């Protein structure tokens, strides 16, 4: 019983979605394979008939400015994201989050598309991306569509993608003067390499006022969580201790934390989220101040 029977190497997005639609089922995409191979090897995913390798598709490897937005192909591995001066310039939270995934071997293979498509509520790359108001470009036999990132998530480990759809890449607004983002997380010393809690902040400042903010937290619910009320709270407030305190309260009020056995209790996560929010706010504010 092998883990897969056929391995396909599409050279274009069109070929990939055709392969997914028409090959003997089950047919699923593979990018870096750092999640999928393990799931197959350990029986968390039943053996499949067809693996459709997305890494040979040039479009998924693109990392460039397109139409006033930063485009990161879904097949771009984390190490390229971390080293890209474009991403550094426009998406600091993504650099920080992708830079913490695995070791260099994993980052050389693992992709941002895979991190997002795996749909874990606390995937680092996903949280880093979510605060940036990213959109995902989805391809299927029917063509292309753009989707706000958060609409990609259906539940823990479940995306809203149909079986013959793939993510082509992500669009991120370019950073304007006065904007900055940051990511941080807390790990547990024991057990699996997923954060106990991670958090990303994007904000825009005008003088000493926060003009706009976006906050993403994981795990705080079945899908990667956008803290909309906290973001709204921050909007228009002066950047000071009192605002941070208020934001911490707002975040505690809206985020739903769970206890995961042998990892962290909900109460611990509530403690940490306060610390992480402040750290990330300070760092993002600082970045928003530099030019």
């Amino acid at each position, binding site marked *: *019983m*092998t*883990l*897969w*029977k*056929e*391995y*396909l*190497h*599409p*050279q274009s997005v069109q*070929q990939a979605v055709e*392969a997914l639609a028409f090959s003997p089922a089950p047919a699923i995409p*593979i990018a870096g*394979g*750092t999640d999928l*191979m*393990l799931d197959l*090897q*350990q029986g968390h995913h039943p*053996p499949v008939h067809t*693996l459709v*390798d997305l*890494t040979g598709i040039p479009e998924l490897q693109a990392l460039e400015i397109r139409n006033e937005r930063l485009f990161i192909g879904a097949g771009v591995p984390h*190490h390229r994201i971390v080293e890209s001066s474009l991403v550094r310039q426009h998406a600091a939270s993504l650099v920080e989050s992708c830079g913490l995934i*695995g*070791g*260099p*071997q*994993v980052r*050389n*293979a693992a992709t941002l598309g895979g991190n997002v498509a795996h749909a874990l509520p606390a995937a680092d790359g996903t949280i880093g991306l979510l605060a940036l108001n990213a959109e995902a470009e989805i391809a299927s036999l029917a063509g292309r569509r753009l989707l706000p990132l958060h609409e990609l998530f259906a539940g823990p480990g479940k995306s809203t993608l149909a079986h013959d759809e793939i993510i082509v890449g992500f669009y991120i607004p370019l950073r304007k003067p006065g904007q900055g983002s940051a990511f941080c997380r*807390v790990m*547990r*010393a*024991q*057990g*699996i*390499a997923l954060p106990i809690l991670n958090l990303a902040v994007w904000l825009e400042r005008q003088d000493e006022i926060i003009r706009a903010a976006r906050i993403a937290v994981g795990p705080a619910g079945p899908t990667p969580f956008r803290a909309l009320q906290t973001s709204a709270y921050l909007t228009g407030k002066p950047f000071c201790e009192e605002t941070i305190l208020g934001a911490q309260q707002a975040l505690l009020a809206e985020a739903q934390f769970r206890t995961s056995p*042998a990892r*962290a*209790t909900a109460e*611990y996560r509530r*403690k*940490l989220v306060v*610390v992480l929010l402040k750290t990330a706010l300070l760092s993002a504010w600082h970045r928003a101040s530099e030019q």
Partner: protein
Amino acid sequence: MKKTHLTLTVNGQTYTLPTLPGETLADLLRKRLRLTGTKIGCNEAECGACTVIMEGEPVLSCSTPAERADGKTIVTIEGLAQQGALHPLQEAFVKHGAVQCGFCIPGQIMTAYGLLSRNLNPTSAEIRHALKDTICRCAGYPTIEQAILAAAKAIRTGQPVEEPEIPASVRGGRFIGQIHVRPDGIEKVTGKAIYTDDLYFENMLYAAVKRAGVPHAFVRHIDVSKARQMPGVAAVLTAAEVPGQNIHGLVTLDWPVMVGVGERVRYVGDAIAIVAAETQEIAKAALDLIEVEFDPQPVICTAIQARQEGVPQLHPKGNLLKHIKVRKGDPQIGFGEADVVLEHTFHTPPHDHLFIEPECSIAVPEGERMLIYVGSQIPYQDRSQVARALGWEESRVRVIGQLMGGGFGGKEDIAGQIHAALLANATGRPVKLLFDRHESLLVHPKRHATQITVKIGAKQDGTLTAIQTELYGDTGAYASLGEKVLTRATTHSAGPYLVPHVHADCYAMYTNNPPAGAFRGFGVLQSAFAIESAMDMLAERLGLDPIELRRKNALRPNTETSTGQVLRESVGLVECIDRVTEAMCQVSRLPRQALFQARPVAGAEHLVRAWGFAVGFKNTGLGGGADDCAGAEVELYENGSFEVRSSSAELGQGLVTVMRLVVAEELCLPPEQVKVLVMDTDLTPNGGPTTASRQTYVTGNASRLAARTLREAIIATLAERYDQAPETIRFENGQVHVNGHVLTMQQVYQEMKAAGKEPRVLYDYHAPATAPLGMPGDMHVAFSFAAQAAEVEVNTLTGEVRVLRVIAANDVGHAINPLGLRGQIEGGVVMGVGHALLENFITENGYVVTDRMARYRVPSIVHTPEIIPIVVEDPVSTGPYGAKGVGEIVLIPTPPAITNAIYHAVGVRFDRLPVDQEQLLWEITKRQA
């Protein structure tokens, strides 16, 4: 889109191969190209051992589909050396002693190669970032870092790789005590070193084991008929088909080879049936066709529960494996004299050895005999255990020991040796049985979980008046070495202190958890955590300095241990304490009285630092009345080279270097002239088990005395032949000087032959007799001592803990092999950090939760503190050149040093390992409120 063939270039050679479904790059390299230098440690993207370079970047070949390599260029460890010249990284790893068991080394070197190909001037921080997920369980991380820095410099400057800065033994020696590289170092850095799974035999079958998967049950029914009919399956065996005795065990025969119908399953890893098939996949698939019905029984999951009334009894003798007692004086008297009496209970969890090389055995039928290829810590025991199950004479079984990718005590018990032999016997074909990481975690014996209560009485000035301890040890489903391990835990439970009244009681209990057996530290790790925590608590209660309290009560020459042994010599504890204290002040630039105060980090006040201190001791050798013996044979060959042989095991710790240096020393030979052969029951004399930090002492002594006897035989022959007084004959530099003649060793060989003498000596060394626990006399031939200080940093906002520095002083008698000693110290400290902060083997109602490497985290280079080693050499007269054991003492004080430091930083006492960051945060919060 679909490819029938893939073309890839590996180490400069291009291959075109048919594609295979489900194949990983690691399988392609190892199985199809037989490039076995690339290792599989976990097959779950956690260990980094399988790292290769693809298109210039390091990737994990175990989780890379082979087809992804189509059109790509790959470099493996075999491709680094150019025209026989080692790559500077390879050279540096050997020179600096970064190679221990060697199993992780290809991955380390390839990851480092990836780093250096982008950055030839890496900082330590960059090295740590790059090696973050490439695990070395021998854990010479600081040395690995140094080796990479040295290699980078050599590449930058074009100069040879610099020598490491490691001091020689202060006790001198021509070869011993000097820096010498391992005899197997070069093989291990070039990927040529062969471990069991790297072997391939024609016509070989692959085995798999049907595990019970339930912790406690009776087997009602087994049906293997469907599995037998599966195409490609060569044999399926159950308990009913074991030709000899269906039982094994190291001390107690209580572990069934397979559990048969009507018999009791005692843990999830019990074997029910075994399969041999043409491929690994078929063998695994056949397991699913085996039908087993169980009659589940209530599960016993702790040692405490096992001793309660009315619980099921797991073995005919009951649940109590042994009640172990230490009796010295009368603690009631001592507590009566005390000004302060303190009592506290501590807990330690099971730990997994997590050697990076999972267990592998290959059985090969050869005529009337069975050859077993295996990396085993006790080859002669494997031989008798396999023979017993086959129902054969022992001499029909030959164990051919292979290099071991780490052992740490976890390769003393039978893993797959017997199962492979049974299947090879049934099919007449070679059979390989390789555990994957999951199976390894489920099956092999762990470190004993303990509950230890310590009660200490002391006078106001700190003088200890009495110690009473009660220990519960969970030996799991089978005894393994449980009795021995827990005896050590008990006899060491009052610490390395002079205490007039000591009582210790230990209950070694069977449960339905995975068995517990030998693991580096051998019970003493657990009891040291308890007593050294309690000593710090006592110091605080008395208002004394924790170092002073220990120093005051420390064992010294002519003091008596808890078991009534008077130590006559080689008690370097006070020197260890003093030197660590001095170093602590020096490196931290703090006055002595400020060492244990909490120090917030300037500018980041939520980070608080402090030092912690602990000491330890550990017996060398089996002791307790066992005949602790080892044989070694030294032979001079016609070409003038020597060989030293013993079945003792090399698991990475460096015994082979010790044997080589000892023989070189005795015969005044360049060490390179001495070959070392170990671990073959046909070719090497019995060296006994590689356990109890005994091999430098016993096999070191055996090798030394064999060499010395051979030297005397040579002298006698030459004295006669040249008619010279024996005293005038000198060995020098690989030659012998006789009355103005200089003889090469080839000539010496000829002279010996001409005189009708065999240039070969077998020496059976027996350590001085010891007495069993409770009998008068010395229980052990020697003890090693240690003191350690750990500096931690606690994040008071998150509860996270980092260990910044560890100062480790170890009294090893004589540092025969300083390079190997450095590796042992680093590895021990890092393992101690792991036990304090990371490692926790979790079971729930007998089921293993930490059943993957991803769930059982061990320290990586990022957890590694700065390690400041101090070598204390207080010799023991019976040891070779004064040496005693080092393998275990190195990690014993680390966990309590760390938890004591946490206490000093934030006032939170951990009486349970590992430190839980969440709990720490709650305790800090409580104290702030």
